[in-house]
């Protein structure tokens, strides 16, 4: 009874040492998150507020988008609207062409990954250089991220060391010390920042009342990407807009505490307009979001702030890794986003959940991730990906459990199966000698 996810997971699980390291690494991030949450007596209150702010914003999304765009325009930013990935990519290409850009440095953005922007721009002759260290590593390796916050978590320091030697980034052959490798990458990226003609960032938040976009990083790569080139393009999904600074305070306090167990990211940067002599563009991207908003069962997914805490805590993610999922975002949030994107392509991920609901009990904005996965599972037959054997088994069980007479008769007969010898079936059945209801009755009579 295997699914697309479980097949890939069984390959992942072959390397027992690595699986144990992966599981332990993410569990320790989860523990750091717990210490951060416990350090703030108001943590649960913040989660309630964060969830309520997002619900409110989504119920007035069009108004907030208009307010954001109009303030950004007042600040001298050029605002674009992209209905889908194709339009987004075309807008970015047009801006870059108008400025004669040959090389663009960029900080982390799951949205550009979603839109397939890098390969599109590269096909049009524009070099795109990822500047978040993890993203840079997987870009050089030709891979996809295996976690949204720690994209190169699937590679060891030896893997990275060998990669850097091959690409000429490190020259002390055999030195795979993470500090040495990080500093070699720093040196190499410094040259990229200084020679690029454009810088791209995503945004963690767009502030409707001021038109700021807010970008949170630990490396400072978003700031480097926008400090050297004169042209800044920011890619933002519609759901990133929040009302004002009072709301931002709530999210800023939770994002990093929940995601990596730090009290804050090193940099929380506010971009409110172009740099002197430069140009700033914001591209607001729908690409499915407005239709997810109309989906009553699943619109809560749009509350997500992409902290990654649901993956860190997920017992299935920790033991199967990001590449076992078919959607480019793994873990509980990725299962849900993949289903919204294309149930047919991604329903194989629905099995990657034990319904333990750990994800939704740590989610800083209270997205009901596990509940939604449960709802999706009820529709598997519609997607043509359900398992006939499981369906028959569960239908039979429901029949038995739903009818006391049938249940008692069946359980009274089961002990007879105990005498079937192992030569007939390859395992020994052991049912209790008396049915459950008879045992309970005997206990009550005593």
């Amino acid at each position, binding site marked *: 009874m295997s699914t697309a996810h479980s097949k890939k997971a069984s390959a992942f699980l072959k390397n027992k040492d690595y699986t144990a390291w992966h599981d332990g*690494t993410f569990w320790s991030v989860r523990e750091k998150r717990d210490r951060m949450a416990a350090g703030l*007596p*108001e943590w649960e209150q913040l989660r309630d507020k964060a969830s*309520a*702010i997002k*619900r*409110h914003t*989504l*119920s*007035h*999304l*069009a108004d907030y988008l208009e307010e954001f*765009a109009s303030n950004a325009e007042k*600040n001298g930013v050029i605002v674009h*609207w*992209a*209905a889908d990935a194709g*339009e987004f990519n075309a807008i970015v290409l047009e801006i870059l062409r108008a400025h004669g850009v040959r090389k663009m440095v960029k900080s982390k953005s799951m949205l550009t990954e979603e839109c397939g922007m890098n390969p599109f721009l590269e096909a049009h002759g524009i070099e795109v250089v990822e500047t978040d*260290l993890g993203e840079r*590593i997987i870009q050089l390796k030709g891979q996809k991220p295996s976690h949204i916050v*720690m*994209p*190169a*978590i699937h*590679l060891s*320091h030896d893997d*990275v060391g060998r990669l850097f030697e091959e690409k000429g980034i490190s020259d002390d052959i055999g030195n795979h010390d*993470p*500090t040495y*490798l*990080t*500093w070699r990458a*720093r040196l190499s990226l410094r040259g990229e920042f*200084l020679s690029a003609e454009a810088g791209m960032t995503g945004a963690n938040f767009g502030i409707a009342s001021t038109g700021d976009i807010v970008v949170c990083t630990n*490396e*400072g*790569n978003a*700031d*480097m990407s926008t*400090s*050297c080139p004169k042209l800044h393009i920011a890619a933002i999904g519609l759901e990133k807009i929040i*009302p004002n*600074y*009072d709301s931002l*305070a*709530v999210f800023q*306090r939770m994002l990093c505490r929940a995601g990596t167990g730090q*009290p*804050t990211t*090193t*940099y929380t940067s*506010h971009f*409110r*307009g172009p*740099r002197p002599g430069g140009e700033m563009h914001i591209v607001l991207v*729908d690409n499915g979001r*407005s*239709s997810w*908003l*109309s989906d009553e069962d699943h619109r809560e997914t749009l509350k997500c702030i992409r902290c990654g805490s649901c993956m860190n805590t997920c017992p299935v993610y920790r033991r199967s890794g990001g590449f076992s999922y078919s959607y480019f975002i793994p873990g509980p949030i990725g299962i849900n986003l993949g289903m919204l994107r294309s149930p047919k392509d991604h329903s194989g991920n629905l099995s990657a959940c034990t319904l333990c609901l750990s994800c939704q009990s740590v989610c800083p904005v209270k997205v009901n991730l596990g509940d939604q996965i449960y709802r999706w599972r009820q529709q598997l037959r519609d997607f043509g990906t359900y398992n006939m054997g499981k369906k028959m088994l569960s239908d039979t069980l429901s029949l038995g459990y739903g009818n006391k007479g049938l249940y008692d008769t069946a359980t009274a007969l089961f002990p007879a199966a105990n005498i079937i010898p192992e030569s007939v079936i390859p395992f020994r059945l052991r049912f209790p000698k008396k049915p459950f209801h008879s045992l309970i009755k005997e206990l009550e009579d005593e």
Partner: protein
Amino acid sequence: MSSREDILARCRAAEPENYEMPVLDDIQAIKYNDTQKQFISMSEAVGGKVVLLEERSVDELVRELFPQASQIASNLPEVTIATLNPDIVQEAGDLDGTDVGIIRGSFGVAENGCIWIPQTMKEKAVCFISENLVILLPKDRIVNNMHEAYREIEFGPYPYGTFISGPSKTADIAQVLVMGAQAARSVTVVLV
């Protein structure tokens, strides 16, 4: 219909019934008896260093902390030892190779060691490109938490500002924490 109008129309049609904006004034946010002590301890926890200026000048302190520094960038009037001024360099790249950058922060945040840095120089690169960053901070300007911080923030003459908490860092290679990813390798906060 343009994409803008189309997207807005689709959102309006899709929006759920009204959910009220929650009251945020009643958040019982953490406060500290001694905000300066908490700020210092958080700054150190995130890999930064905090010193009191005391009777020294900023020049003397920077010389003391970075005796080897040859390229020093600042536009602050109290810094006379600067070799580069981010207001008058031709372009951001001219600041590459800066050993020490000296900038001013408006206020600090006790709960997480953040310092609000409004851009007050033409090339903000000085805040990131410098190997070592020195941030001057008034010692009586430390708020408890980010709720208070977001009521205080103001921009300078340029449309950019950032909260900085400690040096640039990453753990992207095998989850080993390394200071000095793409921006400053060290941050020294000077309480003045």
